[in-house]
């Protein structure tokens, strides 16, 4: 992220509102977390934690400015029917920004923000298989900036964010992998929100849009450049409460009242 480029406040709010409206137009319910003074990154709710059925695994942040967000997230989830779980001491984890289900497997990014051991602990807690992937490119410092499951077995990814091991793991375990080119990856095209067969992503990614439509999904662009300056885009600004689109487990019963209506 480049904080030296000051985000224009009004523009940012308009972009955020457009994203919210787009999501709602697809039939999804959106819960709003009220902003808090002194917590500029609270808006990136993807990093609040990881959701698995009715458990919320609250993130353990490396940096203090985000660590101070956790009590707000914890309070919201506790009040909304989730069991709040905490990572053990010294186990850093940045939630759905670094751990994403694609089918049965939890893919996880480590090195910059989250630790391998945290992912393994999480996997054990949830009883799922977790495949940690090293994030070798500092510009793609969360997994959701370079990897986006759209449905079980289908995902977008940016090859240069991973090393040979990571790419081999992805190719082995994700049958349909759509590479996103450098330019569009830098615009955080991979940081997309999948709802049903619609994929919402940052504007200025025509190649990505084309590839998405090619495989039978619908591409919707929303300009989110003000948030790009802070190091995030569509996915970072949201946290899917009823299980990600590509997660196999969301087909099973959940306790959570909200659910996504499939787009008409």
């Amino acid at each position, binding site marked *: 992220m480049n904080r030296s480029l000051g985000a224009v406040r009004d523009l940012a709010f308009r972009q955020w509102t457009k994203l919210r409206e787009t999501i709602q137009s697809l039939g999804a319910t959106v819960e709003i977390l009220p902003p808090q003074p002194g917590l500029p990154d609270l808006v990136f709710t993807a990093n609040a934690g990881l959701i698995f059925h009715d458990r919320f695994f609250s993130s353990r942040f490396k940096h203090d400015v985000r660590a101070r967000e956790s009590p707000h997230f914890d309070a919201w989830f506790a009040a909304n029917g989730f069991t709040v779980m905490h990572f053990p001491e010294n186990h850093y984890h940045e939630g759905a920004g670094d751990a994403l289900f694609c089918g049965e497997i939890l893919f996880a990014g480590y090195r910059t923000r989250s630790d391998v051991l945290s992912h393994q602990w999480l996997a*054990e807690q949830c009883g799922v298989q977790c495949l940690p992937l090293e994030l070798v490119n500092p510009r793609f410092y969360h997994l959701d900036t370079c990897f986006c499951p759209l449905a079980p077995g289908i995902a977008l990814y940016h090859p240069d964010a991973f090393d040979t091991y990571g790419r081999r793991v992805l190719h082995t375990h994700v049958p349909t992998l759509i590479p996103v080119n450098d330019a569009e990856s830098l615009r955080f095209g991979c940081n997309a929100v999948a709802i049903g067969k619609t994929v919402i992503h940052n504007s200025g990614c025509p190649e990505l849009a084309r590839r998405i439509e090619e495989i039978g999904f619908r591409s919707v662009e929303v300009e989110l450049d003000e948030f790009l300056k802070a190091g995030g885009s569509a996915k970072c600004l949201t946290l899917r409460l009823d299980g990600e689109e590509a997660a196999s487990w969301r087909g099973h019963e959940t306790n959570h009242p909200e659910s996504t209506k499939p787009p008409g």
Partner: protein
Amino acid sequence: MAAKAHSVEHVVMTGHIVDSLLLSKVLDSIRSRGGKYHLHGLVLGENPDDISTASIEVIADTPDQLQAILKEIHPHGAVPRHPHDVKTVVADVDGAFPDGFYCSTNFRTEIRVHGKWIEVLDQEMDCGIRLDGESARCIPMTAVAKGDCIVVGQNGIRVFPPDAEIRRHELFEFMASPVSSERPKGVSVREIAAAMKRAKAAGEKVMAVLGPAVVHTGGGEHVVELIRRGLIDVIFAGNALATHDLEQALYGTSLGVSFDRGLPTSEGHEHHLRAINSIRRWGGIAKAVESGHVKSGIMHEAVKRKIPFVLCGSIRDDGPLPEVITDILASQTEMRKHIPGTGFCLMVATTLHSIAVGNLLPAWIKVACVDINPATVTKLMDRGSSQTVGIVSDAEPFLRSLVAEIAKSS
């Protein structure tokens, strides 16, 4: 002392380390930084949801190289198996360990003190470990003094079985060979001769543990020859071996049986008692040799060449000879003094002393155990030393072959 050329750390990885290629990544990483590794344990999960665990020994040439490797592999989930220092308790009584004391093996052992691994000295099985500042050693129960810092529990201790250090294709590699009289001896004798020479060449000591049958069967002259060739540096034995060796020197008999004619001599059954008595009158074995009374035999050769010997008494001794240590604990203490620097131990024809010495030796000292009784050899090999070669044989023929082999390859 065990050779320790490398810096070593044990790390553990758990999770889906195979599917995620993390295990490969870590092993590749170790190699690409010039280190080596040893996979101590790899437990693979059966189903995709099951996790796997790998226990990896990371080996580097220098501590700095090791630290660099550990730093690189840590983010991929390779974490130290022993994140904690060793735990100690102050001994509250003399002559006994605190409850829960760590009980030693005869394998090379290290303990972690202030984050650093230090080698435990005087490695011996069935002891405790005493920490003195920055150094640690094995001590027997009887040596505990109130106030000693004794290691307790299992944390911060790592043990290196010698199997991991054996890579050569020699007899001593085949630890699990069954004991039997029906095995080609030539190979065994050749290997023992070679091992003794190798130890000497490396500046190590060769220890001989001898039972009285060595003399009874006429093997004394071969032991003398081994001493003359500089292949024995210390002798452990009992009253009987020394007594009958001296009986042979003074009377030409052992247990009254003549070496010339192989038949009992008249009043021969008294010879050994008269020999002991004479030695006692002369003031001991050393004095008997120096004054010229004893002119041949193992003891004579040992005194002349200043080869130390420790004679440990037993409940059935006649006499005993003056040099025999009748206090068992004092004997053990004396024997322990000779162990550092030993590279090879040859045990011939004694059950009691072989087992006693076997219990004192660290696992990396090669041992050859020769006895006419298969049970003795089995017992020695069962005690847990993985570096013991057993030969079922009468004492004299073995020693004769050994000397012949050594002479051949000189």
